[in-house]
């Protein structure tokens, strides 16, 4: 049992087969993962990001939970849905911990976390994403309707005030 700290994967060649061999459905179950693509050129980086993202999509595995998967690249973060950072120092500090031996109490806690990870892993990410997107869409509609209604209400109130004044 080890601490859930970053697992750094350095991709130094543009070989697709090598990258595919590194990917598995259990990649982010035990710890967060950081793919280092910064040594490749931008075209190769784009291709690699596409392959990684496509893998998670086709296998119906989430790169957000149980542990996040990050890509360290010189590309703009907008080119992919995956979280992209420009340098290792910009990764969230939360998982940057010193590794060491765990005592009995900590091992028990880690085992409890492992069970939760398994439960989270069993959730269907596509279904979850669809549900969340639908929920967000509904609430955006509700917000817009509510704004429009409050605008009409303000006009009516102002008109009533003018009427009172004569």
């Amino acid at each position, binding site marked *: 049992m080890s*601490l*859930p700290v970053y697992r750094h994967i350095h991709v130094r060649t543009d070989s697709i087969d090598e990258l595919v061999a590194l990917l598995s459905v259990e990649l982010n179950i035990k710890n967060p993962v950081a793919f280092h693509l910064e040594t490749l050129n931008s075209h190769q980086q784009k291709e690699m990001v596409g392959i990684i993202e496509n893998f998670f999509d086709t296998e119906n595995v989430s790169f957000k*939970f*149980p542990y996040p998967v990050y890509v360290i690249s010189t590309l703009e973060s907008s080119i992919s849905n995956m979280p992209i950072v420009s340098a290792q120092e910009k990764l969230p500090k*939360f998982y940057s*911990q*010193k590794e*060491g031996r*765990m*005592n009995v*109490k*900590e091992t028990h*806690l*880690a085992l*409890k*976390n492992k069970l*939760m*990870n398994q*439960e*989270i892993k069993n*959730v269907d990410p596509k279904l*979850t994403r669809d*549900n*969340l997107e639908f*929920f967000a869409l*509904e*609430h955006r*509609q*509700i917000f817009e*309707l*509510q704004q*429009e*209604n409050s605008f*009409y*209400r303000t*006009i*009516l109130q102002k*008109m009533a005030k*003018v*009427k009172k004044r004569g």
Partner: protein
Amino acid sequence: MDRKKTGKIPDDIKGFEEFIEGEPDAHSFMGKGHPSKKEVSFEHFTFLTNDSDRLMKVRQLLVTKIPFIKRYSQGQTLIEKLGEEKLNLGNELFNQCEKQGSAYRKSLQEIFEIYFNPPKK
């Protein structure tokens, strides 16, 4: 005069000698800032506890909240009600503006008079 030189203690500082001079051998009871082995281990425990909280929240969202939202969604009902309210408010607003002598009509009348009525001499 310096007390060390004379060996006498001035009357006004009697009883406060230790407080003024301090104890030469005194040292902080907190010790130096080197973390012990136990403290480092406690760091791990805190980290694991925080991670456990995070996982618990993610689990709650994915396993409890999202299925609940899907099953008992209030969104469509709210949208329908707000749509009805919007129609009613629109109608009310239109009726108010349409009335004879309404503020809207008066404003329009003023604008038309300015632009289309010949100036009175």
